[in-house]
C-alpha cells in the first residue's frame, strides 16, 4: 500500500513537471502551428538563469527566498529569450511551417552547444531548500516533499492559464485562433502580436519548468531541457495540440503510467510504454494533432 502511494505521488510529481513543460508547447503549436524544438532550450535557459541568480544573491538569504527570486528571474529571462526568438527567427518564416521547425531545430542544437561552451558539459549541482529534500509521511509512506511543490505549481499554472483563456480578451483571441486562425485574421485582429505574446508566455512557462526540473534532478546541465522535451512532445500529442485541459490530463496519465510501469514491471519499461502510447494514440486518433478547442 505504502509503495503504491509513493509511486502515485512521484508519478503525479512527474506529471506536474510534464504539464509545465508541455503547456507552452501545446499553446504555441495549437495557435501558430510551430512544432517548437527550441522549447527545451528555453527550459535550459531558465534553469541556468536561476542557477546564476541563486549564485549572485547575497549569502545572508536562506535557500527558500533565493529559489523564489531566482525562479522569477528565470521566468523573465525565458520570456525575453522567447520574445527575441519569435521576432527575429520565427516571424520572418510565417506560413513556412517546415522551415520554422528547421529553425527551431538549429536553435536547439546551437543552444545546447553554447551552454556547453559557457558552463561546461558537466552537470552543476543546484542549491535546494532543506525542506524540499525532506520527506512527508502520508498513509504510511515516506513521500519526498518536493513533489508536492511541483504539483502545487502545476495546479496554479493550470488554473492561471485556464483563467487567462476564459476571462481575458487575449484568451479569447487565442481560443479563436486555435480553432480558426484565418477567420480571426479576417475579423481584423492582429494575430501576429498575439503570436509574439503567446510564444513569450510559452517560453516563460518553459523556463519555470526548467527551474523545477533542475530542482528535481538536483543538477543543471546543458542537455536537460532536451531530455524533458521528448516527454513534453508526447504529452502534447496525446493531450491534443492546443488544448490545455487535454495536456493536463495527458501529463498526469503519462507521469503515472511511466512511474507505475517502471516500478511494477522493470526499470525502463515505463519510458518505453509511454513512447509506444504516443505512437498508438497518433495512429488511432490522428486528429489529435489538428488542434482541439483550447
Amino acid at each position, binding site marked *: 500500500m505504502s509503495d503504491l502511494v509513493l509511486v502515485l505521488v512521484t508519478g503525479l510529481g512527474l506529471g506536474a513537471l510534464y504539464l509545465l513543460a508541455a503547456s507552452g508547447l501545446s499553446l504555441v503549436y495549437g495557435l501558430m502551428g510551430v512544432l517548437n524544438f527550441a522549447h527545451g532550450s528555453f527550459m535550459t535557459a531558465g534553469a541556468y538563469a536561476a542557477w546564476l541568480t541563486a549564485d549572485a544573491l547575497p549569502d545572508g538569504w536562506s535557500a527558500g527566498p533565493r529559489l523564489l527570486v531566482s525562479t522569477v528571474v528565470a521566468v523573465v529571462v525565458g520570456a525575453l529569450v522567447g520574445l527575441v526568438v519569435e521576432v527575429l527567427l520565427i516571424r520572418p518564416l510565417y506560413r513556412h511551417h517546415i522551415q520554422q521547425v528547421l529553425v527551431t531545430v538549429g536553435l536547439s542544437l546551437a543552444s545546447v552547444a553554447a551552454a556547453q*561552451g559557457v558552463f561546461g558539459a558537466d552537470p552543476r549541482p543546484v542549491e535546494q531548500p532543506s525542506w524540499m529534500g525532506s520527506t512527508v509521511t502520508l498513509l504510511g509512506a515516506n513521500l519526498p516533499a518536493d513533489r508536492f511543490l511541483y504539483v502545487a505549481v502545476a495546479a496554479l499554472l493550470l488554473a492561471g492559464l485556464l483563467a487567462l483563456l476564459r476571462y481575458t480578451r487575449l484568451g479569447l483571441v487565442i481560443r479563436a485562433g486555435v480553432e480558426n486562425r484565418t477567420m480571426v485574421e479576417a475579423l481584423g485582429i492582429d494575430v501576429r502580436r498575439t503570436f509574439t505574446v503567446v510564444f513569450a508566455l510559452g517560453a516563460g512557462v518553459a523556463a519555470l519548468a526548467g527551474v523545477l526540473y533542475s530542482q528535481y534532478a538536483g543538477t543543471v546541465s546543458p542537455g536537460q531541457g532536451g531530455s524533458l522535451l521528448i516527454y513534453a512532445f508526447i504529452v502534447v500529442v496525446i493531450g491534443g495540440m492546443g488544448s490545455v485541459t487535454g495536456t493536463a490530463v495527458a501529463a498526469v496519465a503519462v507521469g503515472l503510467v511511466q512511474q507505475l510501469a517502471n516500478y511494477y514491471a522493470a526499470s525502463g519499461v515505463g519510458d518505453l510504454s509511454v513512447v509506444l502510447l504516443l505512437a498508438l494514440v497518433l*495512429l488511432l486518433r490522428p486528429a489529435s494533432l489538428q488542434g482541439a478547442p483550447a
Partner: protein
Amino acid sequence: MTTPTTTPTSSAAATSGGPEAAPTPPRAGVTRRRMVRVGIPLLVLAVLAWLPYVPVEVPGLLPGRVNGPGSMQLLATCLVTAGLALGYDVLFGRTGLLSFGHALFVAAGSYLLTTTITAWGLPLPVAALVALGGTALLALVVGAVALRVGGIAFAMVTLAFAQAASIVVLRDPGGVTGGEEGHPFERGALPDLLVGVANAPYRYWLALGFVVVSVLVVTGLVHSRAGHAMAAVRENERRAAVLGLDTYRVRLLALVVGSTLGGLGGIVHALVLGGSTPHLTTSELTLSLLVMVVLGGAGSRWGALLGGFLYAYADARLTEASGSGMLTWLPEGVRSVVGQPLFVLGVFFIIVVSFAPTGLTGLGARLLRKAARP
C-alpha cells in the same frame, strides 16, 4: 494545417530548376551535357579513390599526411556521413517525408551487424546481409504503420519508434547492446584488412564504396517511374492521388529504400569505427541528418553528399581548430562558445534556412547562373 501545403524546399527546388527538372536541350547538347553529368562524378570518384596514395601534408585542413591514418579515418567518417545524408534525402528531399526516426534504421544496421557477429559468430558478409535484410524488414513494418498518418503526425510517430529503440539500446537487455558503452567488435571478429591503424585506407575505400552504392541506388531510383512518383507526392500529394498514384505505396517505397541505405550506412559505420555506439540511436543523429540535407540542399544528390561531408568534417575539425590557438584573438567566453562545433553548425543552419532555402548547392547554382548571364 487543413490545406495541403507543398514543402518550401521542394517548391524552391522545382522553381530553381534542379538537374532532373531541366528541359530537354537540343540534340548536340545532350551528349555534352551527359558527358559532364557522368564525367564530373567519375572524376571526383577517381580523385577520392586515389587519395590513399597521396603522401602530402595539408596543414590546417587534415591531421598529418593525406594518406596518414588520422586523415584516412576522418575522411572515412565524413564519407559515411555523406552517404547517410543521401539516404535521408530520399525521404526528406525527394518525397517530402519529414521523418524524425531515421536514426532507428542506421542503428538497426549497426547493432544487427555487431550482435550477429558477436552472438552468432556469423562471418562478416553473411552478418552484413542479415543486418541489411533485417533493417529493410524493420523499415517495411515501421513504415507501413507510421505512414498511416502524414505530416507532423508522421514525424512524431517515427520519433516515438526511434526513441523506443534508443531506450531499449541504452537499457542493454540481456547484455546484447552494451548500454551506454556501445558494442565494439571483439578481437578477431573482423577480417584483418579492416582492423588496425595501418589499414585505415581500406576502411576509407569501404566508406567510399558505400557512397558510390548509395549514389547509384538513388540515381536509379530518381530516374525510375517510382522516382517520378515520389517527386509528384512531394509536390502535391493530393494531386498525385487524384492522378491515380497509390501515394501510400510510393511513400512506403521511399521510406524502405532510404532506410535500407541508412542501415547499410550503419553497417559501414560500425566497420569503420570498430563497433556500434548508442549515439547512433539518438534523435540528435536524425536531427543532424536533417541539418546536413538542408545545409547542402534538399532533393539534390550533390547537396546531400556535400552537406553530410562538410557537417562531419566541421564537427571533427572545429573542435581542434578552437584548441589549436587559431581563435586566441577572441575573448575567452566567446572562444569557448565558438569552439563548439554544433554551435557554429546550428547558427550556420539557421542562417541557411532563413536566407538560402535551397541550401549550399542551390546557392552555388544561382551564383553560377548569375555569372553565366552577361
